[in-house]
């Protein structure tokens, strides 16, 4: 089995190296035979890598502990689902998953964009192949998942934190997000190498960018939900380096998704867009590096590994070569680039949004790298904590939120004060009404929270205004019914209106974050059976402990009866799990959601004593569930935005046909 796995990986490496070399040569020499052969090599690598991944999954299912990786990340008592997810439980398997997703993404990008690729971007194949070669090289020569050993009787088990349903989806989605960003990068580099810097590479990569960005966003939220229910500290995002590493490319990809529209509509920001693509891909690589290398201390650093130096070298090559390429092509990129007509226009709003997003990303990056830099310069790894990040979240996040409401109301090219006043009237009134209501209710003590709530109300009202005005305009242009005009409005510009739904999700997220972080109530107490603890209208009476043995773990719980305003409302059980094979204790918190009050009762029980006493911490988290609901709305908006719209691709194909007609005439 190991021979088949190793051989398949070596074959994939050979195919990718060939695709990179033959593809470059074919593109430079305009040899279509070589280009096609390179493309075939890129496609053929997918079944080879899928074979290697399949071999590893089968080894997990068959308890083949003669493979070091299987023995280190599973055990006989591990449930079936986690034996499959153990594939990405360690470094070697994670790299294999990275490569498998990259192979699938490259396959899809080449096959689905064939009509555009055929004549325009033969350089995309060697760029994709060169990136994949690096990961295949690591798996074959540096960090193989198929290393063998004399088989022990049982394995060491899977990290207990990963034995969670959210961990079945979070890592693959995160990797799809990271890896998918290879496509815009490869096509941007191909456009630069081939000097074809028109809209074709943007159209070819748009859907891939949205899918990657959406997966990354959902993965961050799933990771937060996992942290909320598993880590057991009452929060969901700790500004941990690994969490930040995922946030970084998401922020710059968000900036790119906005600025690319300016290039498509106005032919502006070509240099900026290519630079954003390079930055985003480099940050995706950095994210993978931070997650897997253990270079920065993190609750997610499962191991320190020898791949760090290789990764640093690869990231350096990617950054230096792509920056050099952008510099060499600057004259072409800047040619025929029109100027901004007005500072009060949609394109200017996109520019401000981009500057804020990139500035925020850079401050987060500085915070992530600060321990490494201080270790290098001063010999001590100083780190920055949540106050640093929260300060910049408010500094850049609140203006971004406000801009998210203003931007859609501003016309392209230029907007007059009169039209701006008219557009902003309703959202401003809604925001002021919400602000006044909050102050009247006594919630005005937190300026940041008040600003987040009022700005979110402004954004939500602006979205409603946009849909209403858009539907009215569509109806006046096309006629027909109101529902017909509404569906025509969305269908004609799915990206814009899907984007507005995503804006609504971000506003919900802002309300959820502000509510749960600024208005939460916490109480902590050591309880003996029969004693009670109270928090924000809740009273919890400790009844005693319960113990339940499981297949691969035992559950110890403190059972508490909950009353709200004097009325009994049920039992909660919080405590700890003991995982046998892993010899690990994990938290098992109790979360009780009250949808009517829009708040969570979060209970942590720890330090169980033989006399029956236990430490109990109770947190009342208002509006936290709005964050998870925002995830669903975000996904819905992303689906609308990326729903295939063949019109543009057909338009470009028509251009190709027109050109072919002229050339052959």
């Amino acid at each position, binding site marked *: 089995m190991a021979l088949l796995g190793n051989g398949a990986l070596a*074959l994939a490496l050979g195919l990718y190296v060939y695709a990179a070399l033959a593809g470059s040569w074919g593109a430079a020499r305009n040899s279509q035979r070589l280009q096609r052969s390179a493309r075939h090599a890129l496609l*053929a690598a997918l079944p080879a890598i899928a074979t290697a991944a399949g071999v590893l999954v089968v080894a997990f299912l068959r308890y083949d502990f003669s493979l070091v990786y299987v023995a280190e990340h599973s055990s006989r008592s591990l449930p079936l689902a986690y034996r499959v997810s153990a594939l990405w439980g360690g470094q070697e398997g994670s790299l294999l998953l990275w490569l498998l997703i990259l192979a699938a993404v490259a396959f899809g990008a080449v096959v689905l964009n064939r009509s555009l690729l055929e*004549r325009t971007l033969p350089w995309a194949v060697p760029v994709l192949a060169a990136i994949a070669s690096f990961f295949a090289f690591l798996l074959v020569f540096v960090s193989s998942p198929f290393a063998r050993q004399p088989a022990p009787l049982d394995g060491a088990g899977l990290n207990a934190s990963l034995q969670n349903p959210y961990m079945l989806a979070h890592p693959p989605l995160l990797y799809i997000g990271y890896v998918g960003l290879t496509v815009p990068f490869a096509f941007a580099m191909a456009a630069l190498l081939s000097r074809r810097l*028109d809209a074709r590479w943007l159209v070819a990569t748009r859907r891939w960018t949205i899918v990657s960005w959406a997966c990354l966003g959902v993965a961050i939220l799933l990771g937060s939900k996992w942290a909320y229910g598993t880590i057991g500290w009452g929060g969901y995002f700790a500004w941990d380096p690994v969490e930040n590493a995922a946030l970084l490319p998401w922020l710059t990809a968000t900036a790119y998704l906005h600025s690319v529209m300016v290039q498509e509509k106005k032919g502006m920001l070509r240099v900026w867009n290519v630079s954003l693509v390079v930055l985003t891909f480099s940050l995706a690589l950095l994210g993978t590096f931070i997650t897997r290398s253990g270079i920065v201390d993190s609750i997610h650093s499962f191991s320190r590994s020898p791949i760090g130096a290789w990764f640093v070298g690869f990231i350096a090559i990617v950054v230096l070569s792509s920056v050099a390429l952008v510099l060499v092509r600057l004259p072409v990129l800047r040619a025929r680039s029109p100027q901004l007509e007005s500072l009060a226009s949609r394109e200017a709003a996109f520019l401000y949004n981009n500057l804020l997003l990139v500035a925020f990303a850079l401050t987060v990056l500085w915070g992530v790298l600060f321990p490494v830099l201080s270790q290098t310069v001063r010999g001590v790894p100083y780190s920055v904590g949540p106050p640093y990040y929260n300060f910049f979240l408010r500094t850049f996040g609140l203006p971004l939120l406000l801009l998210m409401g203003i931007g859609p109301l501003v016309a392209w090219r230029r907007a007059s004060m009169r039209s701006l006043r008219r557009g902003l009237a309703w959202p401003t009134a809604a925001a002021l009404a919400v602000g006044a209501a909050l102050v009247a209710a006594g919630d005005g003590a937190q300026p940041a929270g008040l600003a987040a709530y009022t700005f979110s109300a402004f954004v939500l009202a602006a979205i409603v205004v946009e849909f209403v005005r858009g539907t009215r305009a569509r109806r006046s*242009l096309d006629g027909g019914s109101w529902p017909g005009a509404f569906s025509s409005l969305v269908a004609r510009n799915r990206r814009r209106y899907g984007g507005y739904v995503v804006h609504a999700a971000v506003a919900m997220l802002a309300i959820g974050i502000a509510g749960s972080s600024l208005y939460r109530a916490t109480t902590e107490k050591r309880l003996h059976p029969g004693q009670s603890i109270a928090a924000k209208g809740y009273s919890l009476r400790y009844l005693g402990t319960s113990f339940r043995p499981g297949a691969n773990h035992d559950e110890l719980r403190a059972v508490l009866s909950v009353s709200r305003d004097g009325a009994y409302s049920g039992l909660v059980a919080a405590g700890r799990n003991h995982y046998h094979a892993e010899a690990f204790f994990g938290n098992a918190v109790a979360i009780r959601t009250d949808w009517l009050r829009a708040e969570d009762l979060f209970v942590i029980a720890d330090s169980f004593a033989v006399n029956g006493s236990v430490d109990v911490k109770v947190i009342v988290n208002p509006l936290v569930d709005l964050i998870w609901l925002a995830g669903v709305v975000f996904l819905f908006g992303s689906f609308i935005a990326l729903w295939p719209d063949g019109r543009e691709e057909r338009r470009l194909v028509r251009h190709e046909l027109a050109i072919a007609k*002229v050339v052959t005439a």
Partner: protein
Amino acid sequence: MIFVSLLCLLMLSCAAFVAWPLVRFAPDTMSTHPELFEALEERDRALAALRELEFDHRAGKIVDDDYRTLVRTLRLRAAVALKTVDANA
């Protein structure tokens, strides 16, 4: 033995698939005409901008005075783009 056979089969299939275009593919002519493509793009951008302007005007985002000024500029731009397409075609 079965794993070795599977690996050999995989290698041979991949090699055949990669070599196929080198021995059997008859290259077609590569039609490139960047000036025409750029002209078609500019024409489409100009026409889309006119449609967008009309929609924004109906939606109340652009007042009548601005609309009249902008529509003149964009019509001129579209006319120039159409002429360039004709010249290149």
